[in-house]
C-alpha cells in the first residue's frame, strides 16, 4: 500500500511583539469564561455509571468457586473461611428464579477477602464471577493513615464509613 505522505509546512514565524500580544489575547479570553474546576469535596462532579473502584461482595450469591482468586493477577484475592450462618447476617438468602433460599451452594463456606493494598482495579474478578457476587462500585474515598487494606468478607459487604468504625 502506498503511503499518502503529507509534508508539513512551517507555520509563519511570529513577529516579536505582535506574537506576544496575540498570545495575551488568546489567554485573556479565558478570564471571561466559566471555570472548569470541579469543587471536589462539596461537588463530586459527574461520576459515570461504569466507574469502578472498591470491591464489594454479595455473600448470599457467592458459590465459593475460587475463580476470582485464580484470575487475580497479583493474588490480591484470597479465599477465607467464613461461616455465613453463624455470622448473624439476617438476610442469609439468595434470590433465584425459583424463590428465595439459603446460600447452600457455598458448601465449603469460603468467601473472598481482598487486599486492597495491591488491587489494581482491573475488574477481571467481576468479569469472571459466574454469579455476579463480586462487583466494584463508585466508592473511591478510602485513603487511610494505616497500611492495612485487607478487607475480610464481612467488611466487603459494608460501606466504607462502616468499615472504619
Amino acid at each position, binding site marked *: 500500500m502506498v503511503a499518502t505522505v503529507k509534508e508539513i509546512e512551517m507555520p509563519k514565524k511570529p513577529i516579536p511583539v505582535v506574537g506576544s500580544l496575540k498570545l495575551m489575547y488568546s489567554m485573556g479570553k479565558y478570564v471571561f469564561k466559566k471555570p*472548569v*474546576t*470541579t*469543587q*471536589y*469535596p462539596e461537588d*463530586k*462532579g459527574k461520576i459515570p455509571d461504569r466507574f469502578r*473502584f472498591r470491591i464489594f461482595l454479595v455473600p448470599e450469591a457467592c458459590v465459593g468457586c475460587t475463580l476470582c482468586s485464580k484470575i487475580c*493477577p*497479583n*493474588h490480591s484475592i484470597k479465599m477465607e473461611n467464613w461461616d455465613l450462618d453463624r455470622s448473624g447476617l439476617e438476610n442469609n438468602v439468595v434470590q433465584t428464579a425459583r424463590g428465595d433460599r439459603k446460600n447452600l451452594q457455598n458448601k465449603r463456606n469460603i468467601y473472598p477477602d481482598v*487486599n*486492597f*493494598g*495491591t*488491587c*489494581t*482495579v482491573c475488574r477481571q474478578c467481576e468479569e469472571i464471577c459466574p454469579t455476579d457476587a463480586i462487583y466494584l462500585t463508585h466508592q*473511591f*474515598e*478510602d*485513603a*487511610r*493513615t*494505616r*497500611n492495612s*487494606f485487607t478487607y475480610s468478607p464481612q467488611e466487603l459487604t459494608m460501606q466504607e464509613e462502616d468499615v*472504619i468504625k
Partner: protein
Amino acid sequence: MKTGDMGVKTTTLEKALEWGRSNSLWPLTMGLACCAIEMMATQAADVDVARFGSEIFRNSPRQSDLMIVAGTTTKRMAPRVKRIYEEMPYPKYVIAMGVCVIQGGPYVDGYSVVLGVDRVIPVDVYVPGCPPSPQALTYGLITLQKKIRNETDR
C-alpha cells in the same frame, strides 16, 4: 482557666500552627511512574489542588513539606527516595499514592520492586488505587490535613 494560663496558651498556639501547616502543604514532584500523570492531572485545571493550599508543585525538596510518592518505587530508586526525603525540611509529610507504593501493587511477584515505600520512609497517608483518580488523591490530601489537625486516625 483553672490549670494556669500557660497550658491553655500553648495548646491554642499548637492548634494555630497545625491549622497553618495543614493549609499550606507544598508538594514535591516525586513522580516516579504511572501515578505521576494523575498527580499532574490533580495539579491541572480540572481538580486544581491549589484550592487546599497546595499551591504549587515544587521541584526542589528544600522548598516543599509534602512528598507525594507517585508511582512504583523500585529497589534501585528507594535509596534515592530516602535521600530526597532527608533533604526536605521539617515538618514533613508523605502521601503514598497508588498501590505500588503501598504494598507492591501488581509487581508483588517480581524481584525489583520495593513492597511498600513505608519500608524506606515513614508514610502518613495511603491512597489506594491504580492509579487513584485525582479526586481520590484530593481526598487523601484532606485526610492528611485532618491528621495534622489531629482530627482523624483511621
